[in-house]
């Protein structure tokens, strides 16, 4: 298989315009003859579904929650980047492009990133027009703040609830279309199979989560907007229902999965308090604008933070990276926290955290101003830890947050299965090996509002798709597969709960394939995951029946997929014998302990082909060339 990225030729700043012009259009009257299935209603899914329906397509939308407004984009806090250059501080499309490629440690596709930067300004226009209440200056203009990995202020925000406001904007556009009858909404549905007929994606098979019924839906194209796979680590900042199942099933049907080892560990999360914990809570990295990260200089210093004099504190990010200071990118901040903790300088009862201190900012700006900027984050921290961050420094620890890897897509966002598109966090395309803060919202909305409305038409006009419907044999086969799998899960009747397996898998992933990885431990992880998978199918216990609302059954299905996917993630990490972005191999580091890339051998996207459970997947490489941003060691000092 040769991976064709379909990146148009010509200078980078002209590629997208040229491609839009050269892509064939669907006549307005013909659009309503096409059925498009959109799975997932986060920023990517909701914006795509609404935009396609506005154009005239027949859209069906599926989500796992009770309402499309619950999708996990809602939890994004800090903001959304756009190259508006309102602050007049030197930003431009080119600089956002450059920062994103560099921030991704030169492992993203240049043309996609450039397009992302190009459409970023239109996203802000669109959201403002929808009534998204972004923060404003007294004069009425939009406010900006700075974020990690950038030296300009290009982040737009709505308090600490930017994701919520943007998602509600996209959701409102979607609801408008549902009201007009151009979109049919199917909540509480879980996609459990992709239907491929004559080599093209033609539909999905879902389980109705309320009744247990298996339902089939046919269409001319399928858009997977199903988010990231961070929950493979069990503890992450993801929502409880975030899962890899939709993309994993597509992978098993032939969609290549790219760069699964690129997982982002977010530096500012609330530390773990005990075994009962079901998730980790992130606090926006915007906190690093005013908070200073430090640990005591002395190992095992158990004094309370306010009694430790300035001279005995190590503001290690400011010391090591004077020009970016506390605003280094996430991967750098997380790794440094880990190394401080490994040196025995961690703080708190468990020693598994570092301080994020606002005392200086409170002195400088006043508590009122800090409250206005971060009030909800401070309240959240206070609630969870029972400590008041206005009085004592926050304690933070890194946690799994975002998946840069995902289904491989070409410039049109189409996977290796014709007619199957993948948008947002679920695809691999724009962030390389590390995503910069406030860029996830940008990418989700770019894909949905401004990319897929153009590229989908190109596919539909250039492809002859025979008539099909949900009664065809391809659908019946998949319905049978779903029913059999459900039956299998219910029949094991072992002793351990699905969550119990999930926790064990998460521990393997975090210990062996977390913030730092090495060959021996990765090999160990592969065999441990395989053994756990085998045990799962012998010893899992799923109670109640299929024909009802059964959350234990839902969870079991997702854990079963994670047990397969986890192995692929580890294999990818093992094969990539370099360190880059969120993937840090202990064997490959600079003398200062920074990630050391190997551009001669690893400047490619690793796209894996499924060959069977427990079988070694086949690697396909998409070479990455950098014609516009020069390959350089990422340096934030």
């Amino acid at each position, binding site marked *: 298989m040769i991976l064709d990225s379909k990146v148009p030729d010509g200078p980078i700043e002209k590629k997208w315009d040229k491609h839009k012009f050269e892509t064939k259009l669907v006549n307005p009257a013909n659009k309503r003859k096409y059925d498009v299935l959109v799975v997932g209603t986060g920023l990517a899914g909701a914006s795509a579904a609404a935009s396609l329906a506005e154009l005239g397509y027949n859209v069906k939308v599926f989500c796992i929650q*009770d309402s499309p407004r619950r999708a996990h984009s809602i939890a994004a806090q800090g903001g959304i980047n756009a190259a508006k250059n309102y602050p007049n501080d030197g930003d431009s499309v080119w600089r956002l492009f450059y920062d994103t490629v560099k921030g991704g440690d030169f492992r993203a596709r240049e043309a996609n990133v450039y397009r992302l930067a190009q459409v970023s300004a239109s996203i802000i226009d669109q959201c403002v027009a929808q009534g998204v209440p972004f923060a404003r200056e007294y004069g009425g203009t939009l406010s900006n703040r700075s974020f990690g990995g950038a030296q300009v202020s290009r982040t737009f925000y709505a308090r600490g609830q930017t994701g919520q406001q943007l998602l509600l904007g996209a959701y409102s556009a979607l609801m408008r279309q549902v009201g007009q009858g151009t979109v049919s909404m199917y909540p509480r549905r879980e996609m459990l199979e992709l239907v491929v007929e004559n080599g093209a994606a033609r539909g999905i098979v879902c389980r109705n989560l309320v009744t247990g019924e298996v339902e089939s839906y046919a269409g001319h194209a399928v858009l997977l907007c199903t988010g990231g796979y961070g929950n493979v680590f069990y503890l992450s900042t993801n929502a409880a229902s975030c899962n890899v199942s939709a993309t994993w099933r597509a992978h098993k049907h032939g969609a290549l999965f790219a760069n699964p080892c690129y997982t982002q560990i977010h530096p500012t999360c609330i530390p773990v308090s005990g075994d009962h914990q079901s998730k980790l809570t992130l606090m926006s990295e915007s906190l690093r604008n005013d908070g200073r990260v430090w640990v005591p200089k002395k190992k095992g210093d158990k004094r309370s933070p306010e009694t430790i004099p300035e001279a005995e504190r190590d503001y290690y990010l400011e010391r090591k990276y004077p020009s970016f200071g506390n605003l280094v990118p996430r991967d750098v901040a997380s790794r440094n926290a880990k190394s401080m903790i490994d040196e025995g300088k961690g703080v708190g009862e468990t020693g598994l955290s570092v301080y994020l201190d606002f005392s200086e900012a409170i002195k400088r700006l006043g508590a009122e101003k800090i409250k206005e900027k971060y009030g909800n984050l401070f309240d959240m921290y206070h609630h969870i830890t029972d400590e008041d961050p206005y009085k004592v420094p926050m304690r933070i620890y890194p946690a799994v947050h975002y998946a840069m890897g995902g289904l491989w897509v070409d410039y049109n966002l189409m996977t290796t299965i014709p007619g199957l598109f993948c948008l947002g966090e679920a695809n691999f395309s724009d962030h390389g090996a590390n995503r910069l803060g406030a860029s996830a919202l940008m990418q989700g909305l770019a894909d949905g509002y401004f990319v897929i409305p153009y590229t989908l038409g190109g596919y539909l006009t250039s492809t002859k798709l025979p008539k099909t419907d949900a009664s065809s044999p391809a659908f019946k086969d998949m319905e049978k597969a779903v029913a059999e799998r459900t039956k299998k899960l219910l029949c094991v009747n072992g002793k351990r709960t699905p969550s119990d397996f999930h926790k064990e898998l998460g521990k393997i992933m975090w210990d062996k394939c977390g913030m730092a990885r090495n060959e021996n431990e990765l090999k160990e992880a592969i065999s441990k995951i395989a053994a756990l998978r085998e045990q799962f199918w012998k010893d899992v216990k799923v109670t109640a029946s299929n024909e009802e609302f059964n959350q234990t059954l839902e969870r079991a299905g997702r854990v079963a997929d994670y047990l397969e996917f986890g192995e692929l993630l580890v294999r990818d990490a093992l094969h990539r014998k370099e360190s880059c972005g969120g993937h840090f191999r202990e064997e490959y580091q600079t003398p200062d302990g920074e990630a050391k890339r190997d551009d001669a051998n690893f400047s490619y996207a690793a796209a894996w082909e499924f060959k069977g459970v427990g079988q070694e997947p086949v690697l396909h490489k998409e070479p990455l060339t950098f014609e516009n941003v020069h390959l350089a060691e990422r340096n934030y000092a």
Partner: protein
Amino acid sequence: MNLTLKVWRQKGPNDAGKLVEYSAQGVSPDMSFLEMLDVVNEGLIKKGEDAIAFDSDCREGICGMCSLVINGQPHGPELGTATCQLHMRTFSDGDTIVVEPFRARAFPPVKDLAVDRSAFDRIMQAGGYVSVNTGNAPEANANLISHHVAEKAMDAAACIGCGACVAACPNASAMLFVAAKVSQYALLPQGQPERTRRALKMREAMDDEGFGNCSNEYACEAACPKEIKVSNIARFNREHLKASVCSEE
């Protein structure tokens, strides 16, 4: 801590439900209420029993998926907090806690503690949007909005659509939910063209879904995890009255 739980169990929408007693042993004060229920459920599954069904997703107080009426209060005793962020340190060893679903005619039961809140989506479909197609937007700074107006709109927009206001209201009214959305758009220039139409349509949709009317109990504000103010209802009433009297449509 050791606690006694009385949990509403109901197999399906058409089955009768009842309170069933469970004991929760060794509960840590750092657990969230939902993590405590997770632990109880793990025990039930191991015993071969059906786990207690309840909705939750983000578990950080923003998605609005979690619900529960805890000791008679939607989202429990702590003000301004969703159930997922209610911590067990709020309770004491030996407490008996009654856990029920959000109850309202417009929120039909799904199972146990989960209910169907799709009525909210249908109200939104009636007018909870600005009609602007993708690509049709003017430059973002073309409309200036003063800082305090943007902040006020944001206060209203913070609604997470959980439905606690409905569960708390003796009339099961959705006024606070609808008012928050109407207010957000009424305050912003983007919302002006559809201002009257929106107030009328959303109000009508709310009534059609079977939600009750507002009789100024203020229970909604007390229960709201995002502390949305009843002053939004006052604004919505003004909007609705103006629209009813002066609408051009």
